[in-house]
């Protein structure tokens, strides 16, 4: 091996250790307080299943040919993934800014992309973990078998990554703890509820149906629904293009913010 190749290998090994350290810290952070981070989504989803699925759902009948309870499972699971991936990164990175321990990373040789990868992977793992828990709860109420396990898992992970990136951007711009709850309350919740979690967009009048197509959450919910049930309001290919495009844009924005030190350097 040439000296240059050896140096490159050593550098990548160093990046890997930094990434693993950051990821380990992030996973420990949410798993130490699992009662606050994992359990709430499981309880909320159980209530959704009991109230919307069983009590009200039986009166609604079927949607897109599925029992209402089965129809809402993908959306509820994805809602938990979105909320948790987002809130994990936004609260973790903002706390590190607020208490200034983000400086531990800024003075280290870790390049911006490794720092971003560590935080996003931590958020994505929490999102996926909570998603799996909610899925297990769902299995108590339904007897779903995934239509395509590959697509289900892919959408699961991509959605978690996308919203972890969203949480990171929110944290960079946040100047107070209030700022980290504004986006989840006023942007994320409406997008999720109007993203076809509880209904098929075929039920909406023409204008609202077209407007719904501007909602990125709609594509994720439908792609996930396709993975689980084999049905979707929109073409699967388009859903993946939209999800990947958002991930690409959010990644570039996050890296630029980190490299310029926006919100973290004077």
């Amino acid at each position, binding site marked *: 091996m040439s000296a240059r190749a050896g140096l490159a290998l050593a550098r990548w090994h160093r990046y890997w250790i930094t990434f693993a350290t*950051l990821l380990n*810290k992030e996973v420990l952070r949410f798993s130490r307080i699992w009662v606050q981070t994992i359990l709430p989504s499981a309880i909320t989803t159980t209530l959704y299943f009991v109230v919307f699925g069983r009590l009200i759902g039986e009166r609604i009948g079927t949607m897109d040919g599925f029992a209402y309870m089965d129809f809402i499972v993908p959306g509820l699971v994805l809602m938990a993934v979105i909320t948790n991936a987002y809130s994990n990164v936004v609260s973790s990175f903002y706390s590190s800014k607020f208490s200034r321990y983000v400086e531990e990373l800024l003075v280290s040789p870790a390049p911006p992309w490794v720092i971003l990868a560590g935080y996003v992977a931590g958020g994505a793992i929490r999102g996926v973990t909570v998603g799996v828990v909610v899925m297990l709860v769902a299995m108590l109420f339904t007897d779903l078998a995934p239509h395509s396990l590959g697509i289900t898992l892919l959408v699961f992970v991509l959605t978690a990554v996308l919203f972890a990136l969203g949480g990171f951007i929110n944290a960079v711009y946040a100047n107070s703890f209030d700022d980290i709850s504004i986006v989840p309350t006023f942007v994320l919740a409406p997008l999720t509820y109007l993203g076809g979690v509880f209904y098929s967009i075929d039920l909406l009048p023409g204008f609202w149906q077209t407007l719904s197509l501007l909602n990125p959450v709609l594509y994720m919910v439908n792609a996930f629904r396709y993975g689980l049930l084999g049905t979707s309001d929109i073409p699967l290919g388009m859903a993946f293009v939209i999800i990947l495009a958002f991930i690409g844009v959010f990644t570039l924005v996050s890296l630029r913010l980190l490299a310029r030190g926006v919100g973290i350097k004077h």
Partner: protein
Amino acid sequence: MHALAVEQLRKVYSTGFEALKGVDLSVPEGDFFALLGPNGAGKSTLIGIITSLVNKTSGSVRVFGRDLEREPEAVKAALGVVPQEFNFNLFLPVAEVVINQAGYFGIPRREAKVRAEMLLRKLDLWDRRRSEMRLLSGGMKRRLMIARALVHRPRLLILDEPTAGVDIEIRRTMWDYLRQLNAEGTTIILTTHYLEEAESLCRHIAVIDRGRIEAVAETGALLAKLDTEIFVLNLKQPLKCLPSLPGFALTQCDATTLEAALHRSQSLTELFAALARHGIEVGSMRNKQNRLEQLFLEMVQRGRGTRAAAAQAA
């Protein structure tokens, strides 16, 4: 080679405040260097830029010959920083803080644990390794910041007021440890408000004020610039009336205390001899003011005076 070479470094904050006005500074490898200045002089901004916590407006920073802008990873790997304010995750255990920092520098976890144990033992924190950060005293947190800054074995250690709020005993222990590190080859740059600390530890001193370097000199040479030094003399017997001692400026504070302003050309032996001739016996003696403090104030005031005069002339 210089451990640090800063050229024409400027920083203008978004508010328009110019914190650094073209700073030039170099620190030789292996030096123990003090950066002194009043509050708001630009010390922390300068350290912030060197350690990548503050974005510069213009100028350059080189660490062991490597440019911070072109080779940030190499520069950061060579630097250890102890900031002025605590910057910890307060809910992490002590050992975890040091081990994580090692991980950020690419040190494998097994090796990180060994280094963390060595440093925590050295800085008397090993017994508290499982305590959460928020449960530590101020002095312990200061020592932990030193352990954290050293875990990747930096060649240049920068300490921004490391002993602020630390009691005398711990301060002396920290001084001993810093001296040992310097003796082992680590270049150390220190900012401090305790001028006694700079005088005791550092071989070179730079004085910064209002974003400009006012002076850089060897500590001994800087102290030699002092023309007058004031001593407080405690007398063995009470003195009713202070006799006139030609050539000496003496002031009586109370019955058993005198203050003597001694010029550089005069010696203490001459003073004691003159006092003895009047039957005055000195029991003990101390400097009224820290010598460096006196010099520091003189230099800062002189620098401000020169600039004000230049501005008026313009």
